[in-house]
C-alpha cells in the first residue's frame, strides 16, 4: 500500500530534522503502537520502554524507509523487533520448557464481550513464550515457520506454544465471561 502524500511530507520533514514534525509523527502512531507493545510485554512501563526505543530507531532510520509498505506497517515491525530483542535479553531464551500442549479444538470464545484492554490483559497473563507466539501467529499473521526462524526455535515448538496459549486463553476468557454473566444475573 503506497503511503499518502501527507505521510511522504511528514517523513521528509522528519528527515530534515524538523522536531515538530517528528512529534506529529509520534502522536499519529504512538497509541496504536503502544497497544501492540502492551501485548508483548507484561507491564505498561515495559511497553513504554519498547515504544521509546522503537521511536528512536525509527527517527534514525526514517531516511531509509523505502515506502514500499505503509508507515504503520514499518513502525509495527520496528516495535515487534524491539520487543523480541528485549524479551531475548531478559530471558536469554524463551521459557519453552513448559509441558507439551496438544492441539485443542477451537471453542467459541466470546471475545466481543470484552474490551480490547481486557483482552490485552488476558494476553499479558500468558507465559512469555506462549504470549510471543500467540501475538506473532494469531495477531500479526506470521506462519509457524516464520516464527520459528524469528525466534530460533523449531516449528514444532512454535506450534506447541501456540496451542498452549490458546488453551490458557480459552480457560481464562471462559472463566471471566462466566463471572461477568453471574454478576449480571
Amino acid at each position, binding site marked *: 500500500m503506497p503511503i499518502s502524500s501527507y505521510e511522504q511530507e511528514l517523513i521528509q520533514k522528519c528527515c*530534515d530534522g524538523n522536531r515538530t514534525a517528528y512529534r506529529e509523527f509520534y502522536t499519529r502512531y504512538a497509541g496504536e503502537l*503502544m497497544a501492540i507493545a502492551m501485548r508483548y510485554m507484561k507491564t*505498561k512501563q515495559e511497553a513504554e520502554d519498547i515504544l*521509546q526505543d522503537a521511536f528512536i530507531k525509527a527517527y534514525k532510520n526514517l531516511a531509509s524507509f523505502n515506502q514500499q509498505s505503509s508507515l504503520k506497517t514499518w513502525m509495527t515491525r520496528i516495535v515487534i523487533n524491539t520487543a523480541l530483542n528485549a524479551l531475548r535479553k531478559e530471558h536469554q531464551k524463551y521459557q519453552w520448557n513448559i509441558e507439551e500442549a496438544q492441539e485443542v479444538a477451537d471453542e467459541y470464545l466470546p*471475545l466481543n464481550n470484552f474490551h480490547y*484492554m481486557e483482552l490485552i490483559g488476558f494476553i499479558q497473563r500468558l507465559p512469555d513464550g506462549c504470549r510471543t507466539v500467540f501475538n506473532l501467529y*494469531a*495477531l500479526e*499473521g506470521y506462519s509457524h515457520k516464520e516464527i520459528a526462524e524469528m525466534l530460533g526455535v523449531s516449528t514444532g515448538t512454535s506450534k506447541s506454544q501456540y496451542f498452549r496459549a490458546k488453551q490458557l486463553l480459552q480457560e481464562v476468557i471462559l472463566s471471566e465471561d462466566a463471572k461477568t454473566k453471574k454478576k449480571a444475573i
Partner: protein
Amino acid sequence: MKGIYEHNWQEAMAGATIEPSEALWNNIASKLDNERGRNYWVTLLMIAATVSIAFAFPLTLGTLDYNAQPDHSVEIGQATEPTKQITNDKPQISNNTEFTKSKNQIANNTQNLVPKTQNHNTQIRNNDQTITTKPQLTENQVTNNQNQVSAQRINGLPDLGNTQLAGMENYYLIPYFMPLKKDDISGTNLLASLNMGTGSVSNNSGGGGFEALFAQSEQANDVSGFNKNSENRSESQGTAYYIGAGIEFPLGKRWSLLTGLGYRAQHAEGFSNIVQEVDSRYQPLGAYAPVTTGTAFLSESYDYSVTNNYLSVPLSFKYPFISKKIVFRGGLGISTDVMLSNRINSKTYGSASYTPESQEYKRFLLGGVATLDVSYNINNLYSIAFETGYRRGLTSIDQNKEHYPSSFTVGVILFYKIK
C-alpha cells in the same frame, strides 16, 4: 492460512489504541538530543581520523612510487664532435693560504657566482663568450680563470645523438568528488570535498626535448655567456590539495550523478640548471620545462618549488554495491581540468608564473576516474565519506601527446541532504 479463531482475535483487537504517558515523548526528545550531541563528537573524531589517513596514505604511495623509479633525472647524450670545447667547470679557488675567510665562506661565495651574474655584477663579453665576475670576491684573490664560466653558443651545435628523458612515468594527481551514503541515493545532496595526494607536478617532456632545441637553435639568442652545460635537473613528487563543492543528483533508486567545481593546487620541489631570459632578466624554469629561445643552461643547479593551479569539473556516476550501516560504493566518471597557471619559485632567481601554453602543457585535461568509497551516516542530514580512487588520463598532459598520467587519491567528503 489463518482460521476463524485468529480472524476473531484480529477483529477484536482492531483499532486498539493505548495512550502512553505524557513523559514518554519527553524521554524520546531528550534521547534524540543526546544522540545529536554524541554524533557531533563522532563527526569530529571521524574527520580527524580521516584527515590523518588522507595525509598518510598518499604520501606513502607517493614515496613508494617515487623510490621505485630508477632515475628521476633528465639525461642527455653527449656531443660526439663538438665544434668547440665546452668548458664546464665549477669555479675553483686557488691559493687558499692567502684567504682571510674560511674555506666555507669562500665556497659560499663561489656558489653565488650565478646570481651575481644575473645581478649585473658580471661583465659579459660576447665575442669570446666569457663571463668575468669580479666584485665581492676580489678580496679572496680568486683568479680570473677561476671566475670564468665558459659558454657554448647554442648556434651550430652538432647532433647530440640519442636523447633520453627518464622519470617521465611519474604519476599525476587529479582529485575528484565522491558520493556516498545509501540514503542519499534517493535524495539530492550538497557536498564539500577535501582531497589530498601526491604526484609529479610537471610531468611534461618539455616540448619535445632536444628536437625542439635543434629546431630552434638557428634562431636562439646568445645566452649571455652561459654554457651549454649538461642538464642537471630533477623534480620530486610533492603534495597536492583540492577543495571543492558540488551536488549529487539521484538517477533512479540506486544510481546517482555527481558534479561540481573545485580548485586544485599541486606542489613539488626540484632542482634545475636552466633559466629563461626575459627582458634581460633570468627566470627559473622547472625540470620539465621546454627548451626554447632564451633558455640558458647553468653550470650549477638551483633549488626551486613549483605549483600548478587548476579548476576542476568532475562528473561521476555512482552505484552502491554494499548498502548496510556502512555503505560501500563504486564509481566511474570523468574529470575536466583547466590549468590556470604554472608558478615556480626559487631563492636564487625569484618567482615566475607561466601560462600552460608557454610550458607546452595542454590547458584542458580530461581524465577517467574509478573510485571506491565508504560512507557513514552521521544523522538524517549529514554523512561523511572516505574515498580512494584511481585516475587515468584520457588526454595527454603535454602537447606532444606523449604522457597520459595516472594517479591515486584519497579524500574526505561531507554531504548535506537538501531534498
